[in-house]
């Protein structure tokens, strides 16, 4: 979305802070139903990031599929399996958790130091100069539809077959 600069930055900071807190909540909350709702909050924030980066169709697909289907499925699974095992879930800190948090924070800080060192704008100018400056007559969603029905036709059909097979497999495993 082509917002003016300060509003865009304020929105990015706000959604980013909500996303950071939600991501911590997914991992660290002990009750899994709170963790599932926190996951929903994170997914909604990610779809708002997609809107900020001009990808409206992916934002709508994110809202529909992740928040509307996967998150609801996870919440139903948590509700069905919410037996007595979650109540006595004393979350104690083992040494494996400490080692894993050390490794993950080292991954995080190494990637954060790598990202500003990369010359993104060199790549940006080379790709921009090699692109054909065609007219911007068709919108992004039409562009996605054209690509899905011409270049990516075989992966599109394969992904539909994968969805059908996984649906049948899930029903077969769940009914028994």
């Amino acid at each position, binding site marked *: 979305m082509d917002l003016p600069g300060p509003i865009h930055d304020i929105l990015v900071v706000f959604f980013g802070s909500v996303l950071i807190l939600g991501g911590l909540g997914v991992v660290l909350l002990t009750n899994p139903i709170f963790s599932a709702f926190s996951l929903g909050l994170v997914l909604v924030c990610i779809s708002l990031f997609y809107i900020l980066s001009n990808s409206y169709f992916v934002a709508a697909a994110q809202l529909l599929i992740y928040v509307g289907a996967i998150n609801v499925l996870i919440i139903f699974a948590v509700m069905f399996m919410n037996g007595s095992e979650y109540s006595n879930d004393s979350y104690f800190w083992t040494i494996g958790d400490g080692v894993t948090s050390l490794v993950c924070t080292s991954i995080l800080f190494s990637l954060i130091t790598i*990202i500003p060192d990369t010359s993104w704008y060199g790549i940006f100018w080379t790709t921009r100069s090699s692109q054909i400056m065609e007219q911007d007559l068709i919108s992004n969603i039409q562009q996605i539809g054209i690509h*899905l029905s011409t270049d990516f036709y075989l992966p599109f059909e394969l992904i539909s077959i994968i969805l059908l097979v996984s649906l049948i497999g899930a029903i077969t495993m769940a009914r028994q």
Partner: protein
Amino acid sequence: MMFEHVLFLSVYLFSIGIYGLITSRKMVRALMCLELILNSVNINLVTFSDIFDSRQLKGDIFSIFVIAVAAAEAAIGLAIVSSIHRNRKSTRINQSNLLNN
């Protein structure tokens, strides 16, 4: 616009997803952390598609494929978790050794 900040958020989601995937004791929480990892990949794809490839938008198409595969993975994973829960009355990761015996 500093798109590196969005990349920082993506890296944060990825690392916290790895942490939760390794340290979680319940399968449902492991699936949730797997969704976080796939979402960080999607953020990267959409951001680079907006910055570098705003004419062709192939990153958006790849992110749609990733979303579809994530939907299939969530359906299969939760079906497996419910089946294990019905047999074992538990969804702890270290107790799901149905293939041992």
